[in-house]
C-alpha cells in the first residue's frame, strides 16, 4: 500500500468498505441499466436492421453481434476475476474477493452464449453444429475453467477460504490461458485447414463495425450490472452479522432499488 499516494489509498479504502459499496452500487444500478438498454437497442437496431448483409455469408453473419461480444467478454471477465482475486489475496480486500467470485458466473454465462451462438453459426457455415475450430475449442476450455472456479467456490464451506482458493485458481488459469489458446491454435492448424486465403488482417466494414462496438459496450454494461447485483447479494450474505446489514434489514424502506 505504501506505493499508493495516501489520498488515493484512503479513497480506495472508503470505496471498499462494504456499507459504502452497497449504498453506492444501489444508486448506480438504475443508471447503468438505463445506459445498457439504450446501447442494446441501438446496437441491435444497427446490427440487425441497418447493417448490410455480408457478401459471402449473407444474413447469417449477424449472429456475430451476439457471438463476438460474448467471446470478448468471456476472456475479459476472466482477466478481471484474476486481477480482483489477486488484489483480494494480496491486500485482503473483502470487496475484491466478492467482485471476483461474482464475476465468475457472469463470465461462465457469456462463455456459454459464445459457444452456443458459435455452434449455431457453424451449422450454416460449416455444415455441422460443432467443429473443433480453434476458437470454439479454446472457448470450451475457458468454460471448463469457469466451471472449475464456480465448483471450487461452492465446494468450500468457509467463504473466505473459498475466495482465496478461487483467487489462486484464477491466477493459475490466467497464466495458462495464453498457453492453452496457443496450443489449441497450433493443434487446430494441424488438424484443420488454416486460413490460407487470409493474406491481410481481418477486416470488417465500418457499417458492420459500429453496431458491433455498440453491442460490445452494451455487454460490458450488462456485465457490470449483473456482477454488481450478485456482489450485493453476496455481500449481504457474508456480512449478515454486521451492524449495517441488520440496520438495513430493519429499515426496508430505503434498502433495495
Amino acid at each position: 500500500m505504501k506505493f499508493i499516494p495516501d489520498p488515493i489509498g484512503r479513497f480506495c479504502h472508503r470505496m471498499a468498505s462494504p456499507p459504502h459499496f452497497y449504498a453506492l452500487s444501489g444508486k448506480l444500478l438504475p443508471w447503468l441499466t438505463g445506459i445498457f438498454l439504450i446501447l442494446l437497442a441501438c446496437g441491435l437496431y444497427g446490427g440487425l436492421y441497418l447493417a448490410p448483409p455480408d457478401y459471402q455469408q449473407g444474413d447469417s453473419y449477424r449472429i456475430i453481434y451476439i457471438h463476438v461480444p460474448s467471446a470478448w467478454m468471456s476472456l475479459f471477465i476472466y482477466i478481471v476475476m484474476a486481477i480482483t482475486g489477486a488484489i483480494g489475496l494480496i491486500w485482503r480486500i473483502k470487496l475484491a474477493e466478492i467482485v471476483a467470485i461474482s464475476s465468475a458466473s457472469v463470465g461462465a454465462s457469456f462463455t456459454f452464449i459464445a459457444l452456443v451462438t458459435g455452434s449455431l453459426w457453424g451449422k450454416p457455415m460449416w455444415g455441422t453444429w460443432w467443429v473443433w475450430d480453434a476458437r470454439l475449442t479454446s472457448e470450451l476450455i475457458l468454460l471448463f475453467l469457469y466451471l472449475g472456479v464456480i465448483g471450487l467456490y461452492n465446494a468450500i464451506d468457509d467463504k473466505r477460504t473459498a475466495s482465496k482458493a478461487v483467487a489462486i485458481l484464477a491466477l493459475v488459469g490466467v497464466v495458462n490461458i495464453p498457453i492453452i489458446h496457443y496450443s489449441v491454435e497450433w493443434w487446430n492448424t494441424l488438424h484443420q485447414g488454416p486460413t490460407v486465403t487470409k493474406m491481410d488482417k481481418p477486416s470488417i466494414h465500418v457499417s458492420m463495425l459500429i453496431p458491433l462496438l455498440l453491442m460490445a459496450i452494451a455487454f460490458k454494461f450488462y456485465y457490470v450490472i449483473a456482477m454488481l447485483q450478485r456482489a450485493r447479494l453476496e455481500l449481504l450474505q457474508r456480512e449478515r452479522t454486521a451492524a449495517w446489514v441488520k440496520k438495513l434489514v430493519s429499515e426496508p424502506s430505503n434498502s433495495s432499488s
Partner: protein
Amino acid sequence: MMPPSPLLQVEGLSCIRDDRELFCELAFQLGAGQVLLLEGKNGSGKTSLLRILCGFREPDAGHIRWCGNPISDSQYYADMAYVGHLDGIKKELTVLENLNLALALGQHGQYAIPEALTRVQLAGYQQVLVQALSAGQKRRMSLARLLVTKNRLWILDEPFTSLDKQGIKLTETLMTEHCSRGGLIVLTSHHDLNLTDVDVQRIHLS
C-alpha cells in the same frame, strides 16, 4: 514482580466461524518463561486460536507479533513448534526416520535424538515402526520432536490426551524445563496444569 519483556504480542484478535463470534478483541502478551493456558468449553475457539497463532488461519481482525515482527516472517517459524490434534508422525516410518525428518525441516535443538528419546522414555525404540506404538507413546514421540528441534515457542493443543499419569507428569516436567530455559508455551488443556515456579497466565474463552 515485573513481567519479562513480551516476545509474543497479540492485539485485538477476533475470530468468526460460521456466523458465530468465537472471540473478539482478544489481547495478551507473553514473555520468556511464561505459559498461557487457554480454557473453555468444547467449541469455544481454543483450537481456532492456536491455529491462528500457527498462521494456518487468518484472524478476522487483529495482529500477532513475534519479537515485534508479524508472524508471516520466517524467523517466527524458526522459533516455534506445534503439536496439534494430529501427531504429524508417519506411521509407516520408524521413530528415528520420523525424528530425522523433523530435524531436516528445522534446526538442531537442545537434545540429540537418542537423548531426547531417553528423556521421553522411548529409548531403544529407534528402529520401531511408529504404527507399532501405542497412542501414548506416539504422544511422547511428538514431545521428543519438540526436544530435538530448536524452538522457543511451543504451541500445544491438548498435550495430555491419551497420556497416563506418568506421561502427564513427564510432559509437565519438560514444560517446566522449557520455561526455565526462557521458552514460551501456549496450550489448551482440560487437565489442570501443575507447574511449579512457572508464571502461568490463563485466558478463559466462552
